[in-house]
Structure formats: C-alpha cells, structure tokens
C-alpha cells in the first residue's frame, strides 16, 4: 500500500531521517513511535508531502508520489491541534475540501451529512462553531474532515496529545473503532507507548532519525530488537552485574558481560520457584499502590529492583518486609554493550 524506500531528509546540515524503509499494508493501523525529535513526524510529513526528501521514494499503491504536490496526494490528515478552521462552522469545516474540489452543492451536503453520521455528529452539531464542541467532538470533526474527500490513507499526528488522561483513553477506543469501521489504512504518530501498543497492528520505533524496530505490539514489547526499544517501551529493570553473577552461580544460562533487562511483570514475590527459576533475597523499600496492581521497590543488596504484582487484596507486602523475588532467566532480554542509550520516556 505505502512504501517508503531509502528516505533521507535533511534540514541544512542536520540529517533528520537516515535511509528510512517502511511498508504499510492496506487497512493496517501503523504507528510511528519514538521520543521527541526522533523523526516520526518528519516521516509522516514526508508521506503527506509537507517535506520533500533529499533522496528515496514514497509510493502509494505502486505510484511514486515523492514529488506530487500535497493537495494531489489524496492523503487525509488529522493534526495534533486538529487544525479546525475557527471561523467556520462544523459543517463548513467538513465541507471545505469538497468545496475546493468544486463539487455540486447537493453532493457536498450529502457527503457531509453521511460522514457526520458515521462519526456520530448530529445535525445540530454541524451548525455549531468548532469552539462550541468538546475535545472529543472536535476530534471527530477533524477525522470527518480528513475522510470526507475519500482519501486512501489517513495520517494522524499525535491527535490525542492535547487531551486529559481520561478523555485520551476514551477517544483512543473510539479512534480504533472508527478505523475498523472505515477500514482505512492509518498512519499514526505518537510518543505514547501505551497508545501505540493498544491501537496498532504494527509499530515502527524511531530513534535519532533511524528505525530501530518494526513489529507487532507483542514483538516490540516482548522481543525488543534493540536496547533502545527495550528501554523505551514500558518500564524495565536493568540487572546489575552482581545479580547476574548470582543468576550464573545458580546455574542460569546468562551472560553477565551483556546489558541484561527484565520486565517488571515477569518478576514475582514470595511464590514457589518453578524449575529453572531463581529466587533472590530482598527487602521491600517502597510500595506504590495503583489499585489494579501494586508496584514494589525491592532492595536486592546490589540494586533496587521494581516488581509489579496483581492486587489480590491478600498478599500485600509492607515496607521493610523481607521477601523473595522469583526470576526466570528466560525472561531476560540481553544486548551487546554498545552505544550509550538515551531514552526520553
């Protein structure tokens, strides 16, 4: 559907994108994920035509659109700020692109009302100013406006970043439902890993203008290809050399010379170790109560490790309490020591 081949983008002497190669399938929800300044928005703007690459090609359904003007690419965009025209009503905002295409008034009216129905906007809301709508309604207008001209692809640039946490979760679900209903190929940009994991069919993790990994949410989370991805996605413990030596001494097949990581939910407290698992002695130094789960900070002597335990209301450990941390060496993700990893979470 969409193919980015060897895309290089430069701003003066600064190279923003280095040989980016991505293939997005038809109907897929594909997310560009990464910290600020990693190149994800630049890649999106290259696809939409706001930025022209120094080299490389952008093709859609086999057609090279690298040098096609923005307005002729037929790619819908939902902007971070929604970019709704404040001087127009909701109706006029949605109809804008159709009017530019010089469609007949009747046809415009029919298309606007049809798309409004699909995104759940009432006739009354169509006559309102965009400033009179809630954040969620504004998002739906932005989506309707991007979809009404019938684009083959829709690009979304952090459309949830300006909203409060509760609304973000609510709209995230709506967004996913809408994408499934329309079946449209979607490219989504975000720095929020939770958003990326819950929404996407596949994720491309960006870092410093490179793509570190492309994969399903499960692949990037549980089988992170690089140390950066493993650090950037989710919370994680890097195991100290002392802990690694202990594991080795316990007969585990691990390499203390590497950078070794383990996810918080893969560790357990005070359970009987299964074969192959190792028990480490520790003391609870701090406890964070999240309701659904509890996060413990456990001092293992050489390092403090974080563990997440389901809150069953029974096994709750107090600060200062001695516990055993159960670790399965097979859950460790190990990386060759290389470049220093900087992660802006």
């Amino acid at each position: 559907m969409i193919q980015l081949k060897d895309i290089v983008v430069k701003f003066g002497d600064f190279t923003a994108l280095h040989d980016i190669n991505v293939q997005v399938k038809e109907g897929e929800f594909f997310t560009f994920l990464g910290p600020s300044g990693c190149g994800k928005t630049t890649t999106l703007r290259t696809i939409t035509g706001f930025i022209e690459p120094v080299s490389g090609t952008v093709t859609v359904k086999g057609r090279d659109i690298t040098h096609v003007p923005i307005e002729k690419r037929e790619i819908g965009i939902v902007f971070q700020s929604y970019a709704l025209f404040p001087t127009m009503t909701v109706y006029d905002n949605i109809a804008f692109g159709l009017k530019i295409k010089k469609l007949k008034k009747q046809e415009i009216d029919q298309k606007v009302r049809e798309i409004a129905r699909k995104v759940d906007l009432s006739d009354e809301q169509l006559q309102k100013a965009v400033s009179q709508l809630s954040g969620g309604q504004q998002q739906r207008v932005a989506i309707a406006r991007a979809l009404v001209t019938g684009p083959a692809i829709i690009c979304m640039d952090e459309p949830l970043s300006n909203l409060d946490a509760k609304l973000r979760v609510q709209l995230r679900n709506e967004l996913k439902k809408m994408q499934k209903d329309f079946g449209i190929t979607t490219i989504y940009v975000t720095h929020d890993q939770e958003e990326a994991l819950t929404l996407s069919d596949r994720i491309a993790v960006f870092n410093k203008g490179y793509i570190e990994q492309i994969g399903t949410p499960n692949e990037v989370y549980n089988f992170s290809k690089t140390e950066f991805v493993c650090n950037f996605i989710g919370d994680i413990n890097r195991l100290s050399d002392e802990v690694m030596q202990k594991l080795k001494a316990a007969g585990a097949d691990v390499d203390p010379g590497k950078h070794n990581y383990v996810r918080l939910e893969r560790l357990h407290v005070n359970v009987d170790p299964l074969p192959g698992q190792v028990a480490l002695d520790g003391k609870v130094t701090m406890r964070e109560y999240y309701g659904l789960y509890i996060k413990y900070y456990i001092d293992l002597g050489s390092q403090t490790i974080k563990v997440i335990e389901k809150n069953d209301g029974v096994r709750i450990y107090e600060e200062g309490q001695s516990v055993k941390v159960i670790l399965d060496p097979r859950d460790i993700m190990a990386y060759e020591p290389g470049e220093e990893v900087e992660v802006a979470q």
Partner: protein
Amino acid sequence: MSQGLDRKLRPETLLRVFGIAFFAYLFFGFMLLPCLNTLTSIFRTKNAAGETDPFAVIRFFLAGKMKRYVWNSLKLAIYLVVTVNVVGISLVLLTEYFDIKGARILRMGYMTTMIYSGVALVTGYMFLYASDGMLTSLMKNAFPDFNPNWFSGFNAVLFTMTFACTSNHMLFLRNAIRGIDYNTVEAARNMGARPFKVLLKVVLPSLLPTLFSLTVMTFITGLCAMSAPTLLGYDSINPEIVRLAGSSTADEAFPQARAALLSIILAMFTIVLLTVLSAYERKGHYLSVSKTKAKLQKQKITNPVWNVIAHIYAYILFIIYMTPVVMIIVFSFQNYSAIKGKRLDLNGWTLINFIGKQDYTYTNDRGREKTVVGAISGVFSNEKTLGGIKLSFLMSAIAAALACVIVVVACNYIFNKKKSKLSGIVLEYSLLFPWLLPTILICYSYRTYFNSNDVWYVGNTNLYSKENVRFLIIMAYTVTKLPFSLRMIKASFYAIDDELQDAARNLGSSGLSTFLKVKLPIILPSVLAVFALNFNALFTEYDMSATFQSPQGITYAMVIQGMLADATRGANMNALGRRCASTVFIMIVSGIVLYLVYGVGSRDLGERLEIRKRRRERWEKLFGKTEKKEVNKTL
C-alpha cells in the same frame, strides 16, 4: 527553456514582482526621498548674495533665535511626564486598586478622553476655560478681579494635555494592574507588609515596564504637541514648523530650512527615545510565574482620613473630566442666545446646532432691524462643516483601508515560511520606518518635496497644488498609520496556527485560496479593529492637515478650529454651538467605533452563533415560529 519561462511568467511570480515594486516605490518615493530632501534642504540655504551657505540655519539656531521653541517643547514634555503620570496612575489606582465607591462611574468619566481628543477636546476645554468661556465668565462675575486670560499659554497647554493624555494609562496601565496576581499581594500581607508598603514594593514595581513605555510615549506626545499649543497660544516646535512652512523668504530668513531643521531635531529626539524604549522592551517584562493566577481584589483604605481624601480626590478628577463633556453635550442642544450668554436656558433647547438653517435678526446701531440669511446653521446643514466632515470621512476611510491592505499583504509575505527571512525583515523595517519620524516631518517633507513639477516618479505632477493635495494627505495618513497597523496586524498573524495552513493545503486549497478562506477570516476582526482605530484617529486629525495648510485640504478638525474664529463674525452666529455639536458628533462616531472594535469585533464565531440563536428564540417567542432557514448556510 520554455518551461522556465512559463514558471517565470506565472501569475504568482508576476504578483510577487508587482508587490516588491510597489513596496519599493512606497518606501523610496513616499518615505525616504521626501524626508532626505528635508534633511538636505537644511544645507542648501542661500545667503543674501544668493550663494549657498550650508551652515546658515545651524548658525541661526546656535545664535539662539530658534532655541526657544525647542526648549519650550522640551519643557512641556518634561512637565507632562510628571503630571500625566501622576494623574494617570491616580486614575488607575482609584478605579482598579483601591475600593472607591462609585468606581464604575468614575471609570467611565476618566475614559471620556478615549472618545474625544485633539482639537475637539481642546475646543471643549476652551468652551469652559477660555477668556469668554463658561466657567471663566462665571468666575469673573463672582470675582471681578479674576484674570479672564488665565487659561492661555503654557499653563493652559499643560492643564489640557495632562487630562487629555491619560487614555493610554487607562488602557495599558489598567490592563497591567489587572494582570497582577493577587496571591502576590496576599503573600506580602501575610509576611507583615502594610497595604501602602504592598503598593510600593509589590504592585508598583510590577507596573514599571508599562509605566516606562507610557512615560516615553508621553514625552514624545509632549514634544510633538500641535493642537493644544496652536489653539492655546504656546510657542513650541510643531506650531512653529507649520508657521514657517507657510512663510516666505520675503518675510523672514530662510523659513523653509528652519522648519526643516526643527523637524529634524524633533526626529532626532524621537529616534533616541524610541531606541531607548525598544532597548528597554527587549529586556522583557515581568511575567507572572503563577500556575493559578488570582484576580486582583480591591483594597480598602482602612484609615478613615485617607479614605475620605482619596474619595474627594477621585471625584475632583471626575468633575474635571466630566465637566467639559457634560457642558458640551448640554450646550450643543441650546440656542444661540443661551450659548452667547453662557447660561443654561431651559426654554432654549434646539437641534439647530446639528441640523437646519435659520436667519439671524438683530438691531443695528442705528436702530434698524437687520437679518443675516442662513447665519445660524447646524453641523449637517453648514456647507463648510459638512464639506470638512465629508472630506475627512473619505480621506480617513481610504487611508485607514490602504494602511490595512498594505500591512496585511506585507504580513502574509513576512509570515510565509517559503520566503526568505531577510526579505521579510527588510519589508517589516521599511514599514516601521515612519515610526521613527514625527508625523509633522513627514507632512512637511511631502509639502515641500512634492510642491514641484520635477518629481519624475509621480509623473512630474505637482501633488501639492489644488485638489492633488488630497492625494498627498491620504498618502501621509496612510504612511503614518503603517507602523501602528503593522504592530497590531502582525500580532494577529502570530495567532494563526501553522497547522491550519497545512490542513487547508492538504485539503487541496491553493496559496491564494488558503489566504482568502482560512487566514483572512481569522485575522479579519483584528484588521477591522485596526481599520476602525485608524479611521477614528484620522477622522478628527488636525496636526497633519494643518501642516499641509491647503484650501483644498480643509479637514473636519480644521473646520472646528475655524469655528473659533467664525464665532466672532456676524455671518456665522452659532459657530460656538456648532462646535459643541461637532464635538458631540465626534464622541458618537468614536463611541460607535470603539463599541464595534471592542464589543462586537471581539466576539468569536461561537459567541456570534449563540447571540444569533438567542435572538431567534426571542423572535419566535414574540412572533411565533418562522420558517426554518437553510441550515448549512455559510456563516
């Protein structure tokens, strides 16, 4: 090759070339060259033998014969800085900071200078305080030894301008004090500071940047004062420039070069002051770091004696501000004899000062009854006055619109990400250029430079002769309004989100279409506000048209000034009444403009739709449900 040529001849390219040529023509032709001509004219003076003597004017100046005007202007500016700040700060503190009873009414009174200023205000003050003014006459009746000419010269100018120049304080200082976080006041009180200490140590320091700007602006206003010194008889720079501009070498030594020198001196002062101001502004203002700012609460003056004194002071100021307004409004509806007798006649109410014509009948020295046909006429029936109104209206509207169009086009260029930054900066600074020059210098330069058939780029036409002068006045109005328009409209361009333009382009809109359909509607309220404010200022403008001194360029303000002289002549009996009516008319026009700008103009689409909805509901309640209009009509 042909593709390259096609690209070169694209409408957008042609438009760009035309735009660059237009701005270059405007800058060089109507800003730089006329002013340079004024500057160089100082060094082109000729002595009695007809030889060029480059330093004759400077020697003349140094000999002390012109220093008086500069010193007088400086004296006025320095005094004004003190008096305007004292009164201006008082007004703001009394209405916004201290708990004074009736603060809303007081505020309205203090803000009256926003709806009438310049010649209208000065003539209003003269109506009360001049030697034949109402209050002076009252005082003279009560105290026969009272000097009827007390209101003239420096004191009268200082008094009038002190109360006329507080509008900026009421706008900007008021906003600044309202922006203070009340939590900082509470924190100071909590730490043991008494209210007066809080005012001195917390409130006033945070107002200092605004006060500094206001002080510089007041100083420049004092230096460039025109209408008050002219009408009240005070020898300062600007009236002298105008006088010299109309003089000839037969009457005195090199008047034109002297006028030029005075203009340049004024410009130098202005440049220095504005440089100081921008350097200060660049340092930045105090910004509130509060995450949740609390609204300023009015402070009660706990000491009863001080409280009474503050109330008395507030109401004395109110009386000073309101008396001319009330008197002018009342007397604009009084007949000729009531105005002449300076007493209110409850049976003498009339609209004749506004509309209609009457004959004036009187008995002469020989006891014969004489009638002067049409000697009494209203503002809208007197040809001269109506002519002035029409001319001012047209010239102000054209100039205000031109300034806005030029600035909008320029801003669209400056904010275009595709265009080079340097060309944007050059364009911006060329439009700000008139800010550095006193308006009198620009007008004087136009008057002298274009009063010839040798200026090739205006088709060798004498723009100062006959009706052409109107074009020159419009150009002067436009050029002097460019810096203000640029500052205001540029601010509204900053408010346009880049993503809006990207969205429009993504939906297929061209550059021109994006500008017309997306950007322009967003900035339109600001552009209209700037147009209205420009129009308001120019409609009653006096300084510039007085500098041109042309019979074909008699503006409304000049007509009002002329009424002072007319009042003493038999043929125009109710000139004084018409003056009052004119001032009332100006107040109404300014009031409407300010309402449109700050009332209607500041509403966004949502508010407008809400109001429309409420109006429709009220209508339906009163007259029953009407047929539903097409719902998708573009608003």
